[in-house]
């Protein structure tokens, strides 16, 4: 589960993108997740972004059911829209059938439990999630990783150095791997004075647009009045172990359906929703308005109970089968 931004303190985490980072529990089932969230949520003096809002009892209403809840489905979460690197024009690619089927099956189960399914909720700015994430997270990573200079913080080169500059260079050069270096370089580039307007400022505007999508969908006086949005978690199932990032469009956009929650700061929970032909797990995701963790857990629990008898729930990982 990814709680609302600020629900859980970020103290102790190695910061990457401070406005996107959000710690959350992973559990064997929904009740475990609720228990863990109960323990870690709350105010912390060590993190100024942790909020004062009281932590409700997440375990209390867990089994109360979802009768009358409005759960939305958005077509924008069932396709990946990506720009052409040359022309910048957007093309669309549908999600694999198995994944959208799993979500629709879940929607059907939830409807049987008494929830009202609202279809065709527009979330038009979902497609900008990844580009905005690339810019914002890189800028924040470059800023955050500055502190690993090896003087007060982080790796210090064991070799000898002649002067301060060389020491900084060696500390960072040896301490960071390729990926952090790429992120720092890109972050410095897109936040530089002459490029900031083109990249970082624009990404921040996109972020506000993504947030507005959620505000409209969850607005209790609006058109849709959703309690939660039901989406797939990822556009594909897991990649094979030696797959290279960028091999396929779907791989590059693996985070497209989950980053909107980080941009908007809203809570989300991903639940196992079946397996594909190869036996790899498929995830379904519920997104809700700010501080609606209890509602999401309740829907998750209802779904879990309704699908408890399904055969895929008894699948075991290969590493345990071979024992």
């Amino acid at each position: 589960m990814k709680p609302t931004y600020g629900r859980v303190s970020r103290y102790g985490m190695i910061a990457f993108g401070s406005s996107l980072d959000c710690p959350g529990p992973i559990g064997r089932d929904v009740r475990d997740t609720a228990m863990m969230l109960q323990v870690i949520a709350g105010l912390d003096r060590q993190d100024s972004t942790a909020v004062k809002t009281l932590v409700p009892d997440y375990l209390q209403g867990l089994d109360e059911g979802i009768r009358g809840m409005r759960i939305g489905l958005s077509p924008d979460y069932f396709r990946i829209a990506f720009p052409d690197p040359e022309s910048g024009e957007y093309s669309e690619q549908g999600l694999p059938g198995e994944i959208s089927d799993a979500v629709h099956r879940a929607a059907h189960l939830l409807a049987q439990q008494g929830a009202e399914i609202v279809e065709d909720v527009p979330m038009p700015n979902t497609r900008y999630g990844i580009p905005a994430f690339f810019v914002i997270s890189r800028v924040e990573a470059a800023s955050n990783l500055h502190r690993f200079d090896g003087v007060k913080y982080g790796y210090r080169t064991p070799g000898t150095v002649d002067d301060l500059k060389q020491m900084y260079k060696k500390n960072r050069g040896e301490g960071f791997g390729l990926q952090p270096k790429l992120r720092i370089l890109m972050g410095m580039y897109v936040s530089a004075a002459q490029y900031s307007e083109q990249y970082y400022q624009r990404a921040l505007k996109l972020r506000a647009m993504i947030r507005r999508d959620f505000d409209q969908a969850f607005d209790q006086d609006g058109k849709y009045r959703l309690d939660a949005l039901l989406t797939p978690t990822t556009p594909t199932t897991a990649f094979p172990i030696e797959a290279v990032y960028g091999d396929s469009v779907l791989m590059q956009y693996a985070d497209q359906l989950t980053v909107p929650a980080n941009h908007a700061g809203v809570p989300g929970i991903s639940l196992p929703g079946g397996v594909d032909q190869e036996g790899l797990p498929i995830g379904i995701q519920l997104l809700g308005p700010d501080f609606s963790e209890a509602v999401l857990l309740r829907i998750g629990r209802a779904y879990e109970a309704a699908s408890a008898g399904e055969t895929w729930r008894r699948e075991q990982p290969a590493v345990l089968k071979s024992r």
Partner: protein
Amino acid sequence: MELCDRTAYEIVSLIRQRKTSAEEVLESVLERIQAVEGRTGSLDVSQLTEEDRERVHAYLTLTEERARKQAYEVDRKVADGEDPGLLAGFPFQLRMSFVLKGRLPLQHPACYPTLYHPIRQHRWLEWKQPVRSFWEKPTWMSLFLGHPVNPLLTSPARATPGIQAVFPADLPVAVPPLWQPGKQSFRWGLIQPDLSASRLHSAELWE
């Protein structure tokens, strides 16, 4: 079904009812880790072996001893009838990068107590050692002004006779930011040169 396959809710209830102990749960989890975990992941991934493909590479750090101590403490609390806390006795993992209390990363200086001394190794940090700045190469400026000298680090006692820099009486000398005294430190600024012994500049000083 082994203990480690149960949900946290079940495990915690079993511990509270004293049908099992936190130590048993922990051993069950450690046993499973032993059974399925392969070599520790690293940035430098060489050729994958057959074993690498079959096993899980989940842990960078396992704090077994600390977990055992904590499990013992939970069992003691349950036995004494104290409230051990909502999730007490349930072993957990941290995913992604977290700072761990009481653990030093391998590269940390304190891991090399004999090889490495953070202060001595770096001349720029050593007290009363002159610093080669980015002005270390002679430039046209140093021809006239001499090298800038850290005013904090020079003292008449240290200044040995050598090549004396020639300071024109009213020309200010720029000093690199880090080594300015007092309130002016960390800023570029200008100080008035004086021709006292502390401003002596010797070749030996720059060794």
